[in-house]
């Protein structure tokens, strides 16, 4: 007796989700962003598997999500904290480096330098908000690495900034926490595992190609990880938080793999 209303509720939830995602995709005119649920079974032949009912679609979707969670674990296990992504000479930088976001270039966010503060919250000792000047005063490094997009293409770019591990140590982050989450000025959000956060090539970047990070590449700052796919690298970061509660992500919540490592 308890089950029935629960299932009814779940279906309502799906409908709400469908409506919401429909609204979003209509507004952004991007057909690729309807809910995974609606689209995961569109192939003629294989849709037979689903019987085309909502419940069956959900169970297939759940099964695929379960495998995706399993793949997170496999990737965490495969991840070698000391293995470096290949680096390249200046001559191999892709010019122009492609712009990529969940919106078009005409919607690039412009963040004001003067009023900008980086919030740091969660399992950290020092929760003060950072100015850009403070971040620039920390020891900087740069690297030329390959950015691999989930779509398959790749491009080589040069990013400079603060090694994220030294930033996390500086703010007294609990390094045994599971996740580091990011909230961005363009309403993007994502989260990563602590071992990747501490990887030597994970950079809180402030520059691109030795110039201050331009808005199209995420001014004032982007987290750059050559060990993860592009969508795991947030731009326009406004808040960083350390947590043990799974924070998800903009694309991850729609079905992209959470670990997203390479």
């Amino acid at each position, binding site marked *: 007796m308890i089950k029935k209303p629960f299932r009814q509720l779940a279906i309502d939830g799906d409908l709400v989700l469908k409506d919401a995602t429909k609204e979003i995709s209509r507004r952004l005119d991007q057909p690729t962003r309807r809910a995974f649920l609606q689209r995961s079974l569109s192939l003629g032949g294989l849709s037979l598997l689903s019987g085309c009912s909502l419940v069956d679609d959900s169970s297939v979707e759940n099964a695929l999500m379960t495998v995706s969670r399993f793949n997170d674990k496999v990737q965490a296990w495969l991840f070698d904290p000391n293995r470096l992504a290949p680096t390249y000479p200046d001559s191999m930088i892709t010019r122009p480096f492609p712009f990529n976001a969940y919106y078009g270039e005409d919607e690039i966010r412009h963040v004001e330098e003067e009023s900008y503060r980086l919030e740091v919250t969660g399992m950290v000792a020092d929760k003060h908000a950072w100015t850009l000047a403070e971040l620039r005063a920390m020891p900087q490094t740069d690297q030329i690495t390959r950015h691999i997009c989930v779509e398959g293409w790749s491009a080589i770019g040069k990013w400079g900034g603060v090694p994220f591990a030294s930033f996390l140590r500086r703010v007294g982050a609990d390094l045994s926490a599971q996740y580091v989450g990011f909230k961005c000025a363009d309403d993007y959000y994502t989260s990563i595992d602590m071992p990747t956060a501490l990887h030597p090539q994970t950079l809180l970047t402030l520059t691109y190609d030795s110039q201050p990070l331009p808005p199209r590449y995420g001014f004032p700052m982007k987290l750059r990880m050559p060990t993860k796919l592009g969508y795991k690298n947030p731009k326009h970061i406004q808040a960083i938080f350390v947590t043990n509660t799974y924070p998800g992500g903009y694309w991850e919540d729609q079905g992209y793999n959470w670990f997203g*490592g390479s």
Partner: protein
Amino acid sequence: MANDTDLIHPLWVRLTHWINALAIVVLATSGWRIYDASPFFAFAIPREITLGGWLGGAIQWHFAAMWVLVGNGLIYLACNIVSGRLWRKFFPLSPRAFLADVLAAVKGRLSHVDLSHYNMVQRAAYLFVMVDSVLLVLSGLVLWKSVQFPILRELLGGYEAARREHFLAMAALVAFAAIHLLMVALVPRTLLAMIRGR
């Protein structure tokens, strides 16, 4: 074991064959959708024959079916080697006999009286599929985890080269499947044998 001699395909061959067929269909059709997200040739795959609906869905299908392909493939290879079937059925390979059999096949004179005996074209084709599948898995590993498998990545010429190799290996496998299905249509008894075992 006595009636094993009557069997053309033992149960494990039939099971791994059909599981593999399912995995290949899912991997190829979802892989086409992934390719469409950023095609590197001058064409895209028609959306109607792809699986997953959108990139995220296609990736979920692809990265689930890969475990089926690898697990099933390892079981197949292990059984094939341990039972001695690999050497018995697929070797020796003779280039001269291969050409003769290709010629006979084109003329429609290739004998299929004894389905338990593979002619040279079959031997070469099935061995090719085994090698091609291994290449698909290895290039796929480089695409999935290019940083974590540096030796494999360099052997295959880097991430971008691995993308093309993965695609071409897929195309070769699909071409094999098309010819394979055509042959089955010409000699339908082979389909029965792969279902019933004899």
